[in-house]
């Protein structure tokens, strides 16, 4: 497929996806709208992970921790009434950029080890962060509510759906603009070869920590929306499972592809729900079946959903070319 056609295809697909997402809530119940909002949450979190892992090649299995940072930022600001007033909704939304800022800071700090550690060592470091952050919330229970958590005002499903997908749209456009330009090239260069990247003038320290910071900021916003959808936060909301689900979503969707993110998000949020509402599975069986499906999907599509689509398109264009060539 020629680059221009690919770019057209991308724009058309983006438009189609956006229109479909926009029209979907008209047909959904309030409950399914809030489930749709959670798909948006995973979309943003997986997109965030994709920037640092898929594009920059730095493995993180601790993105649940960045979501926790954002989620607690929103929850604490709202719960302690520091940011609420008669016009509560507006203030609610303003906690999102605040969460992004705090998340950005946390990401820079966690990004520092990435300057030294590679591969599995970096993965373990981020894993430790995922374990430690929820414990911190237990220790400072005066602010965080401890294990008992904090309750927040509830919003209806439509409001949450809109918020989630507007945030997702903004994050997507931001990621697209970031990755198509100079910064994105630097990220990919680091992923492909750090030595080659450095010798081409890419400042490794700057771009690695930047990737972590940006990624963490996005994950933090995802955590904020997550908390608003649940109108509740406690340390278990951001348990290790969440980090793993984000990673699974990224891998199933296809690392290093913006398109796969949507498939990955739908997979991790909707499959467990589909399984529990089905006739076969009780809630205890869901993790087992979910794990089996993940293994099956990875065996069938090693490059994830995005890799599958790319292969299919390449195959289609090759057959078309060969048929037009005499």
């Amino acid at each position: 497929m020629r680059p221009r056609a690919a770019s057209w295809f991308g724009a058309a697909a983006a438009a189609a996806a956006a229109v479909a997402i926009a029209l979907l809530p008209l047909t959904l119940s309030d409950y399914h709208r809030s489930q749709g909002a959670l798909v948006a949450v995973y979309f943003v979190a997986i997109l965030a992970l994709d920037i640092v892992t898929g594009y920059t090649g730095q493995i993180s299995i601790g993105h649940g921790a960045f979501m926790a940072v954002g989620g607690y930022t929103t929850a604490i600001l709202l719960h302690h009434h520091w940011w609420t007033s008669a016009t509560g909704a507006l203030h609610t939304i303003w906690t999102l950029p605040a969460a992004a800022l705090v998340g950005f800071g946390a990401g820079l700090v966690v990004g520092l080890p990435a300057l030294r550690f590679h591969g599995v060592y970096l993965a373990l470091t981020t894993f430790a962060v995922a374990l430690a952050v929820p414990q911190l919330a237990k220790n400072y229970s005066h602010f965080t509510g401890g294990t008992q958590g904090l309750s927040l005002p509830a919003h209806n499903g439509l409001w949450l759906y809109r918020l989630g997908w507007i945030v997702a749209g903004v994050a997507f456009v931001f990621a697209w603009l970031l990755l198509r330009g100079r910064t994105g090239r630097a990220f990919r260069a680091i992923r492909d070869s750090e030595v080659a990247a450095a010798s081409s003038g890419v400042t490794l320290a700057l771009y690695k920590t930047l990737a972590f910071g940006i990624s963490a900021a996005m994950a933090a916003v995802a955590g904020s929306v997550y908390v608003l959808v649940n109108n509740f936060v406690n340390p278990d909301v951001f348990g290790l499972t969440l980090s793993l689900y984000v990673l699974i979503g990224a891998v199933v969707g296809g690392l290093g592809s913006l398109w796969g993110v949507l498939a990955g998000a739908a997979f991790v949020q909707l499959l467990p729900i589909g399984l529990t509402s089905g006739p076969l599975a009780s809630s205890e069986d869901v993790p087992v079946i979910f794990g089996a499906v993940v293994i099956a999907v990875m065996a069938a599509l090693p490059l994830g959903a995005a890799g599958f689509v790319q292969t299919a398109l390449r195959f289609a264009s090759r057959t078309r070319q060969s048929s037009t060539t005499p």
Partner: protein
Amino acid sequence: MTRRMQGGLALALLALAVAVVASAAVAAGTATPGVTSKTITIGGTFPLTGPAQLYGVIPKAENAYFQYVNTHGGVNGRKIVFKYYDDQYNPANTVPLTHKLVQQDHVFAVYGSLGTAPILATRDYLNGLRIPQVLVATGDSYWGSQYKKYPWTIGFQPDYPGESRVYGQFIRNKIPQAKIGVLMQNDAYGQNYYNGLLQGLGAAKSKIVDVEKYDATETDVSSQVVKLKAAGANVFALFALPTQTIDALVVTTKIGWHPTTFINNVSSSPLFMGLAQKSGADVQGDITATYVYDVWNNPNTAVAKQYKSILAKYDAGADPLDANNLYGVANAWTMVKVLSLAGKTPTRAGLMRALTHMNWKNPYLYPGIVMKTTPTERYPIDQQILEQYKGASWKPFGHLFGNAR
């Protein structure tokens, strides 16, 4: 067309899509949810698995009673449909499951949901939507004391501070040489019990030599118990969940500590005491409080037989000697009663009216207890009796005491 223009096009389409989302209409509501001409749908969340799973029998016993009522004509001709989900005693699960009960199952009321932290996490949401959250399975004082802010939430059992206040008074009056060690859950549930104990002790609260805490997800409390013994305590106030209580009782005996032990009502089911004994705990002489009918010492009365036959028929395999099954039946009896008084076609306001105008005896409660509420006095059960463990069961002693506030 340049790449930049294509990007602009994509952005424009995205903006259009966002505008469509923003203009989408909200579906309008209808008549009382959860009520049809044939059924009333209610639902709750319970720890079927996880650290508090020993309470998992409660919704099954409640459902057994509802099935019994359904086969005998239902409530004003309507059958009760009871949906319950497993939240593992974790408010992080309770919240989305409660959303599901409301938004997907369209329940008439959230009934019987278990646990202080889970109720605290969901009462803002339910009260905001004016959905009854009733007969919740937790004795924290908030449900009765904060009714002005949360008028749609009401409890069932005696409040925890009232219970532990009596333990405190008992220690103050009967155990002059007491050195008290406390094990409590590190949340509002534990704090409620602890506050009551302090009130009951009054000036004697200086006799508390150590307070140890655990998080609800922690099931091994042996290090805390060892510290309490090391602090020299000879009275052990145990404000924990069943799993941790059983563990604490076993560890206490194993390390050769023999304090006078007070076990809070929600963890003192004879079933749990039996489990602790099987693991080597010496529970003779331990003290607790109760308010349910004493089926253990009166197994052949009409009430005891009725209770056992309901379980045998509608909850196969349930252990009638587990006080939590009796709790479930007593709680469900109350729900059926208030549903029958909630209007010919029940309404949510009618249900709350019935719940705040109780004045009756419940056959599954300890004889003499009157369930009584008014719009400003919202503690349905307000009387209990102390019991001491002797032989293989709890023996009531003294007379009913009220949880005077």
